[in-house]
């Protein structure tokens, strides 16, 4: 390791410690400390040996002078279910754009695990490394059948030649059948996806995400347009994924957030992050966040 790299690592660690001291709570979010000074490699599997799956550090994105993200820092631990709330324009979707490679930030860094530099990869590569994203508006392949939608999301070689030669194995079919059951579309496999209801499309998209077998799921308003019953089932689904997957849920629906935070088997308190004007306004247990004066001012008490 070269001396200047060591020096850079020290500098960053100091900056990090300073920030940590001023943060509200850090909880069990992946500690970044251990990864400083490691050589970055952008190939191979994600390295989560240090307990963190996503490190977003000091990200700034501006559009024509307007700062959509302002030195945003966010860490997600392996297996964590993190809820992110914030008023419109707080930068939630832009944050997801940065993590999934759609928008390149002006400054800052974003790592998947401790070894994958997200800012150097394209969308498809990031998805291939194990980050799945659900859009705000349900986005499925409207003119293909539900079955085909899931088939395309199936984890396999994504290259052109492989797709041309691909034959569906019975193990694959079984997986798809299981997924259809899980997302409550058991009898709709041959239906055209465009004919599904809004809530069913949301589920199909979640199902497609799960077919990719991602390590980290980014879910942008996953229950928008769902009935109460569907919302409840979705919360159950997410809670069942907690632990085996890391989830980041952006949501407006406080009832749903409540279900996510209070449900599940884990005894530790889950962290809720409040975004405002492109940076973290508050972070901590739901009750603490809800009691935070500034949060009440900008968001909850509007």
């Amino acid at each position, binding site marked *: 390791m070269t001396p200047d790299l060591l020096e850079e690592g020290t500098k960053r660690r100091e900056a990090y410690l300073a920030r940590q001291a001023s943060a509200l709570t850090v909880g069990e979010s992946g500690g970044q400390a251990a990864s400083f000074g490691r050589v970055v490699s952008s190939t191979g599997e994600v390295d989560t040996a240090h307990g963190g799956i996503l490190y977003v550090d000091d990200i700034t994105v501006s*559009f024509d002078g307007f700062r959509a993200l302002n030195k945003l820092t966010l860490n997600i631990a392996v297996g964590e279910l993190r809820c992110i709330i914030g008023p419109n324009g707080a930068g939630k*979707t*832009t944050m997801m*754009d940065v993590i999934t490679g759609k928008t390149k930030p002006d400054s800052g860094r974003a790592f998947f695990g401790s070894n994958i530099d997200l800012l150097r990869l394209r969308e498809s590569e990031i998805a291939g490394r194990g980050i799945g994203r659900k*859009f705000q*508006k349900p*986005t499925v392949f409207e003119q293909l059948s539900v079955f085909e939608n899931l088939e395309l999301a199936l984890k396999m070689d994504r290259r052109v030649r492989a797709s041309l030669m691909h034959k569906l194995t019975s193990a694959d079919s079984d997986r798809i059948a299981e997924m259809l059951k899980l997302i409550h579309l058991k009898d709709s496999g041959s239906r055209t996806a465009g004919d599904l209801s809004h809530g069913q499309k949301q589920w199909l998209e979640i199902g497609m995400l799960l077919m990719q077998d991602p390590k980290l799921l980014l879910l942008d308003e996953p229950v928008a347009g769902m009935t109460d019953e569907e919302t409840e089932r979705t919360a159950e689904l997410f809670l069942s994924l907690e632990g085996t997957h890391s989830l980041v849920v952006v949501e407006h629906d406080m009832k749903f957030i409540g279900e996510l935070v209070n449900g599940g088997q884990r005894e530790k308190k889950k962290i809720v992050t409040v975004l405002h004007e492109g940076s973290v306004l508050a972070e901590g247990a739901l009750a603490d966040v809800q009691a935070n004066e500034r949060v009440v001012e900008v968001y909850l008490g509007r």
Partner: protein
Amino acid sequence: MLRHLLNSVLVAAVSAASFVSGSAIALTSDTAKRIAVGENDDRIKALSDALTNPDEALARLIDALLDDSAKVAGDAVLLVNNGKAIHAATGAATTLPATAEDVVNNNRMRNELEGAKAALGLFSESLTKRNNAIVQLKDSADEGKLPLIDRALAKETDAGLKAKLEQLRAAMLVASSDKQKRLDAVAALASSSQPSVRSLLQERLNAGGETDPDVRAALSTAVKAIEGRLVWGERLGVIFSGLSLGSILFLVALGLAITYGLMGVINMAHGELMMIGAYATYLVQNAFRQHLPNAFDFYIIAAIPMSFFAAALVGAALERTVIRWLYGRPLETLLATWGISLVLIQTMRTFFGAQNVPVENPSWLSGGVQVMSNLILPYNRIAILFFSFFVLATVWLLISKTRLGLFVRGVTQNRSMAACMGVNTAKIDTYAFALGAGIAGLAGCALSQVGNVGPDLGQGYIVDSFMVVVLGGVGQLAGTVYAGLGLGVLNKLLEGWTGAVLAKIIVLAFIVIFIQRRPQGIFALKGRSAEA
């Protein structure tokens, strides 16, 4: 030797007696044959020999060769007209033998023939024809035509033409075989400020031209002197024609900036709306000519609103019947509007015929202001330049300062919100599209003053104008202006360097590459990318 002697005798004879009498027996059938058949080099030699001694028969032969009605049968060259043949040399009627073969002329031979035809024009009765001949000969000046010029000089009475002939003569003399003659010619030419003289002298300096050091030095000085006089005129000329093209492009694109830029409608029939504006101008012109001949010079004042409303009306009808149903489906809009353009073109052909119709400039728009020896700014182009800025200012005011503009902006930015605020969005769509179409009509009116008016008028501009909008960035009036003017000037600058077609290709390639780098245009608004 004998031929040489004969030639000089004949030259003397013709110089003495004006050849218009035509009785001379200058063109023998042998000469005619040597002009018509053989290797190109020999034919050209024969032609220039014959030119030293022109007569009507030669003029007749050249005309026939140029329109491919000359045939060769055996030793005789025959000219065929309406199935009747005459001998090239004598003009005597004869029958056309079945064995007669066509005379084939390639490009080089054709150029020579054109030059020869021009040379004969020097002796025309008409002043303009003589002038044209001089202009044409300038491009193909060589020593071989010298005797011809001398004779023309001797006969010329008009002072202006005489001066031009002198210069032409000097141009031929720079290539003379006598050094002193060359030096004199260079000195005479150095006082010129014509671009063609400069290129002529420049050519002599190139490899294969002048070899004598003294003459070369004189040539260099002369070229520099002329260049100094020309350079500013040229630069300004390029910039002006660039601005002129740019102003037309941006007038064309301004309408698109509204329909495509603001409304997002890909209107492939935009060019045809221009065509409607141009035809409206034509109709107004005809009406004035017929009913108000005294006020003919002011028809254009009436044509401007007419072309606007004609195109706007058609635009509104299109929006109501077709385009309205295709909002949000750009590719379908593209196809449907292409279909509309076909129908409009064919409609014009049905009513006005497939030929171009004549649109005359009012007298105060024809001609131009002579700024420098090689720089004339035509009035019509100056007027269009101002007109386009006037239209731009009006549109800008309309969009940014009026209630209609506010509604248009509101509807295009957030349709449902505008609808909630009680704006009749359907009506606003129609108005906005009609406005864009009307501006296209104005562009057509402007175009009618500088170009041809025909059913295909719009086709040539559609690619260019879309390029301007795409380059300027969607939804941007300012971007459209910069892109239009910029592309115009760039096009003209390149044209001087590579020629018109290559310039256009380079500009298109440049835009294609540019869009790759900045898909949103020069003045793109960055924004949070919504999904899909």
